[in-house]
């Protein structure tokens, strides 16, 4: 079996990118984003990208890196605008934007990966989101038809992988990553650690290796968007300094 492991992000994207492609990128805010693969995608110079990602990064980091270089034509997201360059491109009409409710976005990606071309949800009924979409009643309540999403490429960040591509995510860095791993025609994954087959508990694998085509070990900045802390009560703080 050909190894799924590539030496770096650049080689892992080789042959997979083309202008006008659709890319899904995992992460929520800057948490759990595929930093290495976003940078490598920027370096390919691929343009006209439709990016499916819950957010759009910040200026120059996350998907913001691809906005600075104007490689993204359209975003499908639930919440954006932590990003001045995004705002400028959007207001000037350079960038298209499709808003999906966050749960609808998550489910559309899950559906795309699961071979479900459409599903009904109450989310967005009676709002702009449902305009032009098919409505249907079930048990007297109205629902809107939403479609499955797939991408030419999904780029995913996990915590650990084994050599066969079984993945484990860490804490809230899981977010959109597992669904996106299922919904890309090709899925490339970056992890903090690649472990030998047999090292992961088979009951605790979040994404089975079948979904993972290529795998790299990355290096991570893990920038924090909103560092919020509390203060230790004086005694506790004193105790803390002893450690």
């Amino acid at each position, binding site marked *: 079996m050909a190894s799924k492991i590539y030496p770096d992000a650049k080689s892992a994207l080789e042959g997979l990118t083309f202008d006008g492609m659709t890319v899904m990128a995992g992460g929520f805010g800057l948490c759990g984003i595929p930093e290495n693969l976003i940078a490598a995608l920027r370096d390919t110079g691929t343009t006209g990208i439709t990016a499916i990602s819950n957010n759009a990064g910040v200026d120059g980091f996350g998907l913001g890196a691809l906005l600075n270089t104007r490689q993204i034509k359209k975003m499908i997201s639930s919440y954006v605008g932590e990003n001045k360059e995004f705002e400028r491109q959007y207001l000037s009409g350079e960038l298209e934007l499709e808003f999906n409710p966050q749960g609808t976005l998550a489910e559309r990606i899950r559906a795309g990966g699961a071979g479900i071309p459409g599903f009904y949800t*109450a989310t967005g009924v009676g709002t*702009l989101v449902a305009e032009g979409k098919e409505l249907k009643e079930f048990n007297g309540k109205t629902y809107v038809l939403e479609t499955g999403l797939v991408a030419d490429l999904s780029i995913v960040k996990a915590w650990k992988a084994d050599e066969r591509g079984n993945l484990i995510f860490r804490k809230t860095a899981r977010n959109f990553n597992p669904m996106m791993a299922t919904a890309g025609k090709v899925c490339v994954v970056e992890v903090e650690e690649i472990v030998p087959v047999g090292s992961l508990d088979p009951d605790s694998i979040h994404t089975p290796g079948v979904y993972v085509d290529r795998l790299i070990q990355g290096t991570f900045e893990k920038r924090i*968007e*909103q560092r919020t802390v*509390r203060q230790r009560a004086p005694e506790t703080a004193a105790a803390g300094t002893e450690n």
Partner: protein
Amino acid sequence: MPWTRDDLAMRAAKELKDGFYVNLGIGIPTLVANHIPDGMTVTFQSENGMLGMGPFPYDDEVDPDLINAGKQTITELPETAYFSSSDSFAMIRGGHIDLTILGAMEVAENGDIANWMIPGKLVKGMGGAMDLVAGVKKVVVVMEHANKHGESKVLKACTLPLTGTQVVSLIISTLGVFEVKPDGSGLRLIELAPDVTLEEIAAKTEAAYEVAI
């Protein structure tokens, strides 16, 4: 004297019940977590994929892999479970969360809510708000009674693009508390903030309502 931000959070906390699973919106709703009655167990869900959200971390506990839906660093608790965004919204959409407390720009007397966009202004997106109002068993709104121009935010009909229709159960404004009648037939004023008069409410509220104090 209208309720302060903290008063609003304290009043909203009265909607908590022992054993509830709750999703709190950004802003004032976040403060509700500071007012859980003693002896009551409430579990907070964060829609980015966590059940059992803990307080903000101490400086040396900050973990970039652990944030809430407002992208703030947080901590976990012994009972915490993590899951994906699709599993998180399956939980929300499927009616498994008992209560959500959200801010709003406008609420209408039939329970419509608008809290995500102002036409002509830059729109950041609805995030998870539409899923929360459509899926959670009980939706409580906490907000200023009037906007910056002094106009009522409790309306006959919303003027801004909607987040959801006929979904709000309770409005806690800076001036008082309104129930939205479950049959959608209108509002009932059930509480006043201290020193707020029925006349003041009447003058500052566009929506029709019954007084039931």
